[in-house]
């Protein structure tokens, strides 16, 4: 069974507790009315809510205790992110956690001890990785020159407008490096907010040109490339966790409608044409949940091994496919109601497009899985 490979799936007491707390928190504090209230807002989330999440320790879950975190590892974030996905709750948590992971994995002791406590304390951070629309392009377009000045733009930087800290992939002396940029270093007008299909999310193109990076905020060395690879995989995993939660919520929304809406004198849930695809959504969501918690089991603070890489990629593939299907059917099965902005189905179909395109789409990961599994 070497192709199926590692099928470890464990769930710690800490994860269980986090799952319970997060689901309850999101259900109570982020009902759909609250989500909808943020759709047109600049920041995309409620600061007071974020503060509460921070006070629950979520910003530091995956950071070491020495840096003010809980030291539970990134796998412990999965139940939290899944719960947020379920509630369609957008905050900078994913961005911050990934920025933290990137610093943790690539930075030296001085850097991590200096920078991570802020992130653990809830100061939003983000990572700027994309030079263009191609997640499969390994080149880095943003240049850090020998005077430590940046030149170039990063695309679609998540939560850019609220981030205090940007961890930016740069090309430095012809090699991949990281630059840590504070928001106050950006020139006026550096942020060009994106219009995203998923209105619960925020991102911006960020022009870093002209920013001089503090010497202590430059991270170089062989770990950078590995950390970048790993954080993209962890990004895929967290997006997958979020998408899985959203798919589960979409399923609930569909099931509720199928149980209450009548057409031609019958509850529409009794028609197999709707019933059976809904079962497909259920089983696909089940698979997605299995994959994300398997991946959560496989990742830790070390360099990700092949099993972990496979697990993260599979989680991304399964979760995105599931949400793309669930979102699409969610609109269709709500009939005319599904065609309205008022119906929650639109939130899921939009989220599906977002999730699909973060950290590489289904095809991107399947191609790499083929290389990992089939040589």
């Amino acid at each position, binding site marked *: 069974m070497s192709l199926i490979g590692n099928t470890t799936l464990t769930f710690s007491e800490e994860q269980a507790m986090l799952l319970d707390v997060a689901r309850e928190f999101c259900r109570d504090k982020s009902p759909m009315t609250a989500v909808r209230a943020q759709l047109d807002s600049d920041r995309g989330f409620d600061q007071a809510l974020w503060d509460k999440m921070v006070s629950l320790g979520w910003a530091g879950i995956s950071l070491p205790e020495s840096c003010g975190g809980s030291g539970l590892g990134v796998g412990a974030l999965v139940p939290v992110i899944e719960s947020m996905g379920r509630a369609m709750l957008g905050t900078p948590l994913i961005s911050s956690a990934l920025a933290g992971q990137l610093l943790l994995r690539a930075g030296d002791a001085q850097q991590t001890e200096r920078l991570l406590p802020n992130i653990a304390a809830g100061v939003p951070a983000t990572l700027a990785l994309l030079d263009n629309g*191609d997640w499969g392009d390994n080149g880095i377009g943003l240049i850090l020159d020998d005077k430590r000045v940046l030149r170039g733009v990063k695309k679609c930087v998540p939560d850019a407008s609220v981030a205090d800290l940007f961890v930016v992939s740069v090309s430095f002396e012809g090699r991949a490096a990281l630059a840590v940029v504070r928001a106050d270093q950006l020139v006026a007008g550096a942020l060009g907010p994106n*219009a*995203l299909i998923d209105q619960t999310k925020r991102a911006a193109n960020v022009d870093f040109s002209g920013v001089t990076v503090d010497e202590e905020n430059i991270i170089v060395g062989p770990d950078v490339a590995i950390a970048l690879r790993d954080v993209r995989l962890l990004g895929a995993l967290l997006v997958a966790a979020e998408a899985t939660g959203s798919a589960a919520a979409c399923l609930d929304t569909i099931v509720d409608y199928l149980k209450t809406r009548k057409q031609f004198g019958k509850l529409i849930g009794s028609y197999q044409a709707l019933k059976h695809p809904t079962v497909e959504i259920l089983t696909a969501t089940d698979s997605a949940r299995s994959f994300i918690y398997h991946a959560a089991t496989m990742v830790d603070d070390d360099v990700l091994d092949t099993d972990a890489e496979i697990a993260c990629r599979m989680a991304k593939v399964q979760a995105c496919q599931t949400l*793309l299907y669930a979102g699409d059917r969610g609109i269709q099965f709500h*009939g*005319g109601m599904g065609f309205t902005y008022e119906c929650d189905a639109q939130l899921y179909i939009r989220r599906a497009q977002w999730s*699909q395109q973060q950290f590489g789409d*289904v*095809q991107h990961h399947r191609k790499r899985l083929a290389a990992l599994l089939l040589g």
Partner: protein
Amino acid sequence: MSASEQELNEFRVEVAAWMKDNSPADPGFLLPQTFMEVGDERQLDFLRNWQHKIWSAGYLGMAWPKEYGGCGVEPIYQSIADKEMRRLAVPICFNVIGLGWAGPLINDIGSEEQKAKYLKGILNAEDVWCQGFSEPDHGSDLGNAQTRAVRDGDEYVLNGQKIWTTMGNFAKYMILLARTNPDSPRKYDGLSFFLSPMHVSGIDTRPIRKLTGEFGFTETFFTDARIPADSIMGEEGQGWKIAMKTLQYERGAEAGAAGGQSMVRMTVEDMISQLDGVRRDGAPVLEDPVVRDQVVEAIMEEKALFLGDRRARIGHLTTDYPGSLPLSHKLRGTEMTRRMRQLAINLQGAEGALYVGDDDARQGGFWQRAYLNSFSATIGGGTSQVQANIIAEHVLGLPK
């Protein structure tokens, strides 16, 4: 006497030239992809002007009688003009319910008075028309419409609610399906068909925001609204038959429609063109073998539909399950469209997450919007699921 091949070709060239010369420049605001998303006055004015211009040039309602604003020529001319408009991707002719539904119906079975009153206004875009068929609780079940029309002297009194009224807030007239006899044993026999004025006390509309974020539909509420009794088409009880008749005209100029394009062209070729410059793993996305495979599938789906239309005209090749090709056309076409547009976004890479309003969005978010809009066709006019039932029962003869 029909037009010669040469005459038609000359006409084609003429239309193309006119369209190229007269097609309006990008107005700098979002234009509707279909007549179902005319959301504000600015869009309405733009499209009204454009339709009026086409009509003035003589390229709309060409097969309709001269005395009512048409040109009185063979429908083939309109078909050619339609094709050129489509090919050149000019803006749409937005007054679709008038041009393709109400107008042809009035032409067919209307009185002289009705023709004189309505037809020209449809063509020159002065009178916007809307449609009142669907109701909130009976989305796929038109025959079950409950909006009441009660005869009271020279008037009918309307009460009830319609939904999915395209441009209900701009329309002067509505084609309305309402129940005149609630006690009729067959529910279909209790329905009647009206050409109802909209600007009447007791008729109110409320815009519906679509999942795309845009407007274009309304709900329409009837509260003791009184319309003239001669607004009825045909007799009481003939509503269902007449409503079904209007659906026939959708098939183009040859079937009686005035012409014009009701939606922006979005072929699989357009879908492929939008991928210009999109890269995957550092190379053009269309070089990726798996992407190529998906795109070939999409091309074949579209081609199959075209070929099916051709085959449908050959009697010998349609003896198995007659009616299969025309009856399945809507299901196949709309589902193909939905899949193709979803593919369009999937292939965009990170830009697929952008939307209308983003400078980086491919073609201004055209395909994102198009994908979301595609559900209007897989849901409206009978959901795909209902369509499959109809085909199963009417074509294959499977039990209900």
